[in-house]
């Protein structure tokens, strides 16, 4: 089978990570290549290492050994990864993690504080993003006033605030009912389709995983299967 050559956006090379003084091995030499424009679902049971891998890719955690490279640049050589996270990555969490005291618009503006977006531009930009996720009329609502699905859509708008290259979603439908989960996944698929943004999500739900064009199955800290059957590393 001929492998189409697309630019590599991110790569995990022999990544290992253990916790609690080495008693728990979350990742055992994981290799993974993520092409630009990919829509990948990392699946696996609880404790398989999928969230750990996602956190490594997003620069939230660092490997014990191995390397994470983004656009060919090793994250280990970047020092403080906050700029990398602010500019290159957008995060969507299972528990939404919105700031409860801020309005939807202000929540979307939070990542912009660390970008070059001027103060003047932030509010209109947040309004546009909220409109794109179907929440144009909820810009002044605070998270407690929103439904779970709406909160996750605000979180998605927030993840897009700085136009990241890589969107990482950790169980984005994990706290939602089926209807809201479908709406959120339709939204993520549309964003991927329309912007070509690279999207990696972690899920244990096959229905959610089915939205992805490629699925990586993990077990016991290792990638055991990739569907379609592509090599996980070049």
């Amino acid at each position, binding site marked *: 089978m001929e492998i189409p050559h697309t630019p590599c956006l991110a790569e995990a090379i022999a990544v290992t990570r253990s916790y609690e003084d080495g008693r728990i091995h979350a990742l055992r030499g994981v290799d993974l290549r993520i092409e630009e424009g990919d829509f990948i679902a990392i699946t696996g049971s609880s404790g398989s290492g999928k969230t750990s891998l996602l*956190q490594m890719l997003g620069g939230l955690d660092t490997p014990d050994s191995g390397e994470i490279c983004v656009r060919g640049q090793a994250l280990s050589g970047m020092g403080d990864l906050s700029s990398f996270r602010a500019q290159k990555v957008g995060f969507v969490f299972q528990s939404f993690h919105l700031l409860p005291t801020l309005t939807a*618009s202000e929540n979307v503006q939070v990542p912009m504080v660390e970008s070059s977006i001027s103060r003047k531009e932030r509010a209109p930009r947040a309004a546009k993003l909220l409109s794109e996720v179907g929440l144009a009329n909820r810009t002044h609502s605070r998270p407690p006033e929103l439904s779970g699905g709406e909160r996750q859509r605000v979180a998605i708008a927030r993840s897009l605030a700085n136009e990241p290259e890589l969107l990482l979603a950790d169980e984005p439908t994990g706290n939602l009912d089926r209807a809201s989960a479908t709406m959120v996944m339709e939204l993520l698929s549309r964003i991927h389709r329309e912007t070509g943004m690279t999207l990696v999500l972690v899920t244990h739900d096959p229905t959610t995983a089915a939205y992805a064009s490629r699925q990586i199955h993990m077990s016991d800290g290792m990638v055991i299967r990739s569907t379609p059957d592509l090599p996980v590393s070049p």
Partner: protein
Amino acid sequence: MNLFPMVTRNFKVRRMRTALTLLGIAVGMMAIVSLMGLARGFERGWDQTMNARGTDAVINRVAAGSPIPAPFSEDISLNIRSLPGVESSGGVLSSLIPVDHLPVVLITSWEWESYIWKHLRIIEGRMHKHREEQAILLGKSASQMLGKGVGDSLLLYGLEFPVCGIYESTSMIESGAILVPLDVLQRHSDNTGKINFLNLRFNPGMEKAATRALCEEIEKKHPGLSASLASESAQSNSTTKAVRGMTLAVTLLAMIVGLTSVMNTMLMSVFERTVEIGVLRAIGWKASRIRRMILLEASLLGVAGGALGVLLAFAVRELLYLFPSIGSAIRIEIAPGAVIFTIVFATVVGTVSGLYPAIRASRMKPTVAFRHQ
């Protein structure tokens, strides 16, 4: 969107804790402002007294431990009076005693026929007829405090003293005092031949340097006595020093209370917002911005606590003035400098208290923060 609304809304969410923290800081700051005001009020009152009398210098014992210095022999005044440059002098013997229902009232006595008597304005009744007359003059405030007027009498040193007159003085201290001739108080307080202040009036037109030199000369000739210019004597007065000492002690105490309460509040706040801070770090906020956010929160608590403390000090002062026995005895003068000092001090205390919580928050790893959930 900036840090300020994020911080202020956190206060709003945790209203009760914020209010209690503010109250803790405010009480400490109120005490500082009030004591500074008390010291200033006393200094001003003392200055008023000296100005009202036309006194240029005051002599009293060095290192007096009590508000009123220990007595010394009035014979010294004969020697001092003869010094070139000294126009006149007046011995003063004062004491703080319980009178009627009031725990402490200033009773003061002046050397008969000295210049000190001249500034008094009798508004009711009459002056003493002679140096030995066993009668009292009441200052206007003292008359109000004690509820006594001309024709009434007061029990002093176990003897009945009729009130012969009421006087008015621009000095608050004098206005709240009971006045008798020196000889009378000396006899009844077992201080015959003693005074505890000697007021001096210099020759008109004397240069300040010359008056200072004269004070130094007096101190040299009479070891154990302190001679200070009237304009400076309030600062060296033992009461002023005592209030200043108390102010310093309360300032230190307020600093400790402020530091611990703000630090406790901020640590609680950081602990409760572990996930929130983790999210901010995850979406790219730099550690320095997290530090700034926590420090801003802590310093705002300080500013608000300081401002509230100042307002409380004004309120407490007005409350105290509602009681005539307190209002006429003390004066709390809150200077703009004291207000600024207190607010700046509270802000610094707040900011310093926020340092450790801010550093702790900024070092939080997002993945560790998420596990806290």
